[in-house]
């Protein structure tokens, strides 16, 4: 059985937030909604270092949904709207979600977002904050995002361009693409080649091989959520005075 997972190599991550942006556009997230975020660890401002000279550091951390094996959000959903598919994807059925938001409280990674209002309202407010005239955006106007609805084999609605008010949404590992054999947008859109996506159960897959060869960690492992997103930690730097000479000097 396929079981999808992802590796994010923090050595390769350049903090550019392309993953978050391509995710937002492809998955039609209105202003105010982010399925994925990239932050600078320990800093209030992205790309501002922490520490004191000379030991300043900037480590960038992208955080998508972890698609936990032991997902707290699945456990608390009273109506079975959030579930884990056989291939390991944790999804939300927009037609079954009642908007109780227990899952948002339960998720230790803070990746779930709630549609408090019609997404058109978000666009209106977003453009207002951007300094545009109030009434330029109207219902039915252009909105970015994958155009077609996507349902799982058993007919559950897991992607729709305009999300109904009152449902919870989150990263789906781009289920609409994965079901067509295409990798998630954040993997295809990462200019740093920081991400590997694939089948954790296939020992020959790139992701399995990489996990065998390299030390990886998961976020908040101690909670027992068993995330399927793995991180390769930043390598120790050579630091002052260190130099790796080639064979020839």
């Amino acid at each position, binding site marked *: 059985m396929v079981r999808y997972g992802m590796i994010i190599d923090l050595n390769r991550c350049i903090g550019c937030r392309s993953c978050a942006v391509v995710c937002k556009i492809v998955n039609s997230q209105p202003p105010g909604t982010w399925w994925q975020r990239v932050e600078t660890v320990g800093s209030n401002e992205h790309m501002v270092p922490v520490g004191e000279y000379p030991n300043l550091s900037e480590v960038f951390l992208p955080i998508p949904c972890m698609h936990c094996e032991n997902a707290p959000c699945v456990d608390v959903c009273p109506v079975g709207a959030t579930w884990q598919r056989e291939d390991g994807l944790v999804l939300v059925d927009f037609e079954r979600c009642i908007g109780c938001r227990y899952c948002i409280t339960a998720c230790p990674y803070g990746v779930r977002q709630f549609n408090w209002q019609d997404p058109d309202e978000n666009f209106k407010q977003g453009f207002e904050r951007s300094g545009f005239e109030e009434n330029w955006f109207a219902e039915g106007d252009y909105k970015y995002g994958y*155009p077609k609805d996507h349902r799982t084999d058993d007919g559950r609605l897991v992607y729709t361009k305009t999300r109904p008010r009152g449902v919870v949404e989150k990263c789906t590992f781009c289920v609409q693409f994965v079901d067509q054999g295409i990798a998630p947008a954040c993997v295809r859109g990462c200019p740093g080649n920081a991400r590997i996506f694939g089948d954790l159960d296939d020992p020959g897959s790139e992701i399995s091989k990489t996990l065998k060869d390299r030390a990886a960690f998961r976020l908040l492992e101690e909670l027992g959520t068993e995330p399927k997103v793995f991180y390769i930690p930043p390598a120790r730097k050579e630091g002052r005075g260190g130099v790796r000479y080639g064979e020839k000097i």
Partner: protein
Amino acid sequence: MNVTRRDFVKLCAFGAISTGIASRYFRVASSKSSGSDEIKLVRSTCSPNCTGACAYHAMVYKGRITSLIQAADYPEPEYNPRGCLKGQSMVNLIYGPDRLKKPLIRVGERGEGKFKAVSWDEALDYAADKLAEIMKKYGPESIALSIQVPGTGYVHKGAAIRLASMFGWSVLHGYTMNGDLPAFWSQTFGVQTEEFESLEWINSKYIAIFGSNLLVTRLPDAKFLSIAKEKGAKVIMVDMNFTPTAAKADEWIQINPSTDAALALGIVNVIIEQKLYDEDFIKTYTDMPLLVRLDNNKRLRAYEVKDLKDEAERLKKEIPEYRDLFVVYDINKGGFKIVNPESLERDFEPALEGEFEVELIDGKRVKVKPVFQLVKELVTEDYTPEKVAEIITPPERDKTEYTHMIRRIAWEMATTKPLHIVYGASNYQWFHGDLKGRALSLIVALTGNIGKPGAGISTYAGQFKIRWPLGMWWLFKGRKPNWVTYLLWMNREYRQSEEFKKYNRETPYPENDVKAFVFGWNNPFDQHNMANRLKEMAKSGELEFILAIDFQATTSTKWADVVLPGVAWYEKWELTATILHPYVQMQQPAIEPLFECMQEIWIFKELAKKLVERWNDEELKAQIADFYPDSALFIREEEARKNGSWSLKLAREIADEASLKATELMLGKHDLTKEITLDRLLKEGAVRLNINAPKNRQIPFWEQIHEKKPFPPPSFPASLAKTARFVKSGRIEFYKEEDVFIDFGETLPVHKEPFIDTEYRVNPEAKNKYRYAFITRNALYRVHSTHSNNITMLELQDFRPRVWMNPKTAQEKGIKPGDLVEVYNDRGKVKGYAVLDPGIHPSVIIFEQGWWSRYLRGDSYNTLTYPWVKAVHLAYFVPGIWEPTTVWNECACDVRKV
């Protein structure tokens, strides 16, 4: 002060919107939604002025682009996927509220933004009337044209130059206008600029980055730094400020602002003292062995030497006029020897050190020394690690530690090969930036790190190099445009100064000044409004006509008299070939142009046609059908006009055909594009240029080092005769002997402190009043000012501009994080919200360039900057290659809480 959205609207009041023609952009756009239920992917390339030219797939559904993602189809898999957050969210601009819909003619005051929407004919006739009037009154060279980076659009930007060439308008070279020209390249290597393709970075074992924030400014290439490290390279970052790139580097070396030349010369001191240099390399490829006369500081010419005169006279006839015959002291021969400037095959064993006496033809005996000896004396006297540490060590840091560091870094750089130095714009966009580049080049030359895989020096800001000669399309029947230097236009005082009169040899300036400004792909009223001069010229009427072409309403279109709506990439056929990666690619239309927007080739063709009617040149009148690459296309459209079958749709179809014809015209004519055809580009996506190096890799100076061809390689479109005279010896030149270099003490690279020759010279009080350097760096969220209005990018910045400073600066000024602060000097001001950043040098204030005025309460951050002109940049004139170049960072300021 708390600014509400309403204040924003009040301040910017975009007339196009408020005059009732544009409030419902998306309603009209939605009428474009059509077609089947199928999802289509169209491969094109993103092409703003980052010049990444990254391949994208546009997902098209019912006639609209729903999303964009990197195509990831480059033949070398390492390059995939090229692209970044801006390209991915480009739909926000294509379908954004600032999208222009129709041609506009100004009805309010300039800058007020009040326009009336008119028909294409009305707008074009109006513009042509004004332009023709100015051409007649002041001469065609009084019209200045700016198109920014040409490589991002050979067809449509080429059409603009074609128009300029017809009438002899003056073109503003974007490279120097933007300050991206690293002047040391022409001074040292005789080229416009050179750089490794980023795939080559992984062949280096030591990468030393001097002031280039690659992780933010070269997003699609940044990963190659990581890969280089994985393969065992050491990466060091020398910068006054900590950056994401410094975070990735093994070592960050913080130095005082604009002191890189001192550090480089300190490193050179150690390399020479410890004899770590590659003697054979410098004897063969550089001017190090050439002799310099101590009596007049000029190089010794062979025909000045009594014993060499006859041979020199004979050889002089065999070499091109742009070369000269210089002399070495040949140890084997035990006498003076003439160096062949046309080959780097070495048939002599020159002395690098010592002093010699030579008898001239008039019997006078003069002392001479090899350039190497002079360099050695210079660094031994002035740039010992101890002296350099005095210059570069930031306040409150240990100078002894810096002294040790200089010795260690020098040793590492000299012994870990291949070495690659990246020389960035934060470093060279200073008044004495060229000196730093010359000093850094010394390191790679002394250690023989040039022209080999992973070994060299690169600059990555501004990518203006033309890949191959394009005159067949860019120049109308061989006619040539004129040129005007932006800094001279902005700086009348300098133009009238004694210094300018004394040193200017060939830099042209329109006799009757610049009277009209035509620009496209460009937002100069934010980006180039130095000391507020551009806006003042527009306000005063000194600038008599302003014509803007863009697909969006920007700050600058607001200042124009006529605005013509062009198209976004994804709406046209276009040929791109930028220079960080060596591929030729096509843009293809994913959607039809929105509203009444038109492909630029058509706009310039129409303008040309209407100008010819108003201009007294019978030859041009007879030839006008040839503006399109195939006159049949021109005639077809004219006939449709006559018989009433003309429509915007037909004009677009013809313009598309013309764009493809122009593409074909430019391909396959030069060795570099041999066998590259339109068909191949459409089939294969990206096709590599035929660069003369193994695997066609972009390794600068491969031919010079391996085939012993003299420097420089050509810099298109300039002829070799124009650029080779910069390095008359055919070698890499560290000694510059033109009078202006001698007068300013810059015959060899030296360190000069910032502001002394600029701010403090003009106003001695500035030294106490404005103690901070105003650095306007590039933002992660914009490509210069493109994407300033991108809602997704704005959201990532909390919709507000920031000002970065060291916590100590903030403490001194009583500023807390998030406070609204004003950065100012005598010339101007800008406001932003304070961010305290321990990585910022205590004498630096940072603002991120590219914010449109409407996000800055109408202010312009370039009101603080000034169009300084450095005299050595007047020694020659080749547009965009040797020309005065903007120095954004040479700007002193202060900061206060609002």
